[in-house]
């Protein structure tokens, strides 16, 4: 019932939740409003840490993909899939917060600014990763193809970043961070990173359970198929 593992998991989420509460409190009470933009600017405190966490999730996916290709152990594959899913979820948050920022700053929901474009492409890159996994039926083939794609996609990320910076940037975003703002930002980093790690591990465990379950089903099916002799029991009754 109350195994050490379950206690740890509960404590982990409690701490994360508490840190989020502190961070939100800091945003509301502590961090000053920025001059030009007003209160909406505070979405930045969510946007930047989540963006960095997205990158971390993509990095985990990359390492796990490499690990799978080298060692061919299926838990690498489960880890890569979990990290990619979390990356997509986080990147959606990055996109949405970026768009909200853009709407309040420049009145448009979407601009092809380098930052938004980059977020969109990153999101698409890993949505494709997840779609690849859905599209391939064979377990082993799926793992190999995803791993290859996971490696290439991650290596592509810096190139995407560099290439979108060539695009014209009508709304350059430079933010002056006063000291209390920096502290608030730091306060947001920790719970966001904890959340990311927790989500990845949770999804990883789910993947492992699913894999074991379908392995058991496969075994049952294959042994059932070849057991027992065949008998002819007569024609139409």
């Amino acid at each position, binding site marked *: 019932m109350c195994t050490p593992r379950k206690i740890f998991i509960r404590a982990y989420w409690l701490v994360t939740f508490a840190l989020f509460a502190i961070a939100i409190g800091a945003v509301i009470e502590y961090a000053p409003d920025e001059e030009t933009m007003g209160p909406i600017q505070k979405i930045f405190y969510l946007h930047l840490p989540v963006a960095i966490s997205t990158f971390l999730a993509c990095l985990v996916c990359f390492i796990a993909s490499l690990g799978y*290709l080298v060692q061919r152990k299926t838990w690498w594959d489960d880890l890569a899939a979990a990290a990619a899913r979390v990356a997509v979820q986080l990147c959606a948050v990055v996109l949405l917060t970026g768009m909200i920022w853009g709407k309040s700053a420049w009145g448009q929901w979407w601009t092809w600014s380098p930052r938004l474009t980059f977020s969109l492409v990153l999101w698409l890159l890993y949505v*494709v990763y997840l779609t*690849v996994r859905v*599209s391939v039926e064979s377990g082993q083939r799926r793992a190999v193809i995803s791993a290859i794609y996971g490696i*290439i996609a991650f290596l592509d990320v810096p*190139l*995407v970043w560099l290439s979108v910076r060539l695009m014209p940037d009508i709304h350059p975003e430079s933010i002056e961070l006063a000291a209390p703002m920096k502290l608030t930002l730091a306060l947001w980093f920790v719970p966001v990173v904890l959340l990311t790690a927790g989500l990845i591990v949770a999804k990883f465990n789910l993947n492992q359970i699913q894999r074991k379950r379908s392995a058991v089903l496969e075994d049952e099916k294959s042994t059932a198929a070849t057991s027992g002799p065949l008998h002819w029991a007569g024609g139409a009754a």
Partner: protein
Amino acid sequence: MTGSIAQFQLLTAKDLKIEARSRQTMSLVLVLGVLIVVVLGLGLGTTNNVAGFNAMAVLWVAYLFSGVLCFEKTMAVERNDNVLAGLMMAPLDRGLIYLSKLASNLILMLAVAAVVTPAGILFFGFDLSAAPGSFAAVMLLGILGFAAIGTLFSAAVSSTRLQGGLLAMMVFPVSLPLVVVSTQLMIRTFRDGQAPGLSGIGILVAFDAIFLVVSWMVFELVLEP
């Protein structure tokens, strides 16, 4: 070393011979390429001559779709009768298989480019006179990078059911830097009259170098005899 070069030539020649024999892919791909140019160009409007920078975008779409078909076909050759196992068992460095497939894909894609680009110039008066050399260089670097990943991915998905769709879905987002950089460079060259900056070309070269090396190294792990 000379043995490897001879084997590489043998492998590439074999692909081209088979392609010349069946002629399936080339006709399909060329027609598709020209169709895309026509349809897109019509969509952009026929009254104003499409300037060089728009030309790049239209041509890229044509290259992307034709390219995916080329990659699919050159890999499909190895699927029949498990010929891939025959290649894998030969005493050669399996990276050579990648390089020869890449070479075949490049040759096919350049053949497509050789037809589609003039078609675009003809139908829509693509005005490349300002900097034809830059245009050609950017296009070639782009096609090289695209073929580098396309060859790797096509080997990976070759045994799956949804080959072509899966391949297109994987290659397009990864190739975005190529498309973005080449269109931006062409905008600066043709509309703003600047020489293509080193940073832009640098990104293309970096893309090509990184993905050529990585694909070549990783290729063997993808093969499924």
